[in-house]
């Protein structure tokens, strides 16, 4: 699959089946959630739970997901049983489904496109500390804000795990200002 999404690829072909049993996290469409944790256990649990269960309110279809992570996609797939969901690796390696941490524009474009094209979706953006270590904080914040703006106008949710030890209080406050806190 290429780096950019076509509307048809955001549909049923990316839906996961039977990885969880019941929906345990009630994340609202159009909202972004910050999770202060390291490692990102709750973030992945919520993401996997939502892509593999029907909505709490009894909606018909499953939620489509997109994960961007610092962990190797094969490890993520194996641990969380993800088969259909696209998993992109933040790394300085060439390859399919690999995004360089310095390519913030491409990353933002991909996430925005997914949000625009998906009526019921969820994005997991894991590895913000790695993005900050490869760019300056302001650039990363601008990218997160840009994605967040599009999330607000879409049927998608964003989960952003953040290791609070990696940021000073002011940076953390700036990251959190337009987001809900999970946990």
């Amino acid at each position: 699959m290429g780096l950019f999404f076509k509307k048809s690829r955001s549909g049923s072909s990316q839906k996961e089946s039977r990885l969880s049993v019941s929906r345990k996290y009630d994340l609202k469409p159009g909202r972004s959630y910050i999770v202060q944790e390291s490692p990102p256990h709750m973030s992945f649990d919520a993401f996997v739970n939502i892509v593999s269960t029907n909505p709490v309110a009894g909606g018909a279809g499953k939620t489509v997901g997109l994960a961007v992570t610092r962990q190797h996609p094969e490890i993520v797939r194996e641990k969380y049983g993800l088969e259909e969901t696209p998993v992109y690796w933040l790394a300085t390696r060439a390859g399919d489904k690999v995004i360089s941490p310095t390519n913030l524009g491409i990353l933002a474009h991909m996430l925005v496109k997914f949000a625009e094209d998906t009526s019921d979706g969820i994005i997991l953006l894991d590895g913000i500390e790695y993005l900050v270590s490869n760019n300056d904080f302001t650039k990363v914040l601008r990218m997160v804000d840009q994605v967040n703006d599009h999330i607000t106008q879409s049927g998608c949710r964003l989960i952003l795990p953040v290791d609070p030890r990696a940021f000073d209080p002011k940076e953390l406050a700036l990251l959190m200002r337009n987001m809900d806190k999970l946990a």
Partner: protein
Amino acid sequence: MKILVVDDSGAFRRVLTELLVRAGFHDVIEAGDFKEAISAFKESRPKFTFVDMILPDKSGVDLTKEILAMSPDAVVIAMSSIINKRMIQQSLEAGAKDFLLKPTNEIALSSVITMWSE
């Protein structure tokens, strides 16, 4: 409400017990393997049993079957640190009501208990 936590990792049992206490469930019993779990279950008859799918002696699926044979109204929640579809399927077929990914958290735990308490 009595809750039994079955996991061979003492550290995980302590974390889960702490999460349960924080969520308002103070009557928590722990067991480290199949035998201990059966004995604790017989003695306490907990409403909920959280069972790690991989135990040192018999499997979590065996324990689920045994518990439900003793008490068909008991609620068994399977747990594992990886999502293995076949294992989840086996747990559900054995009668487990739900599945939790380890390490779990207050939100997922409370949600499961609320859902299956009703």
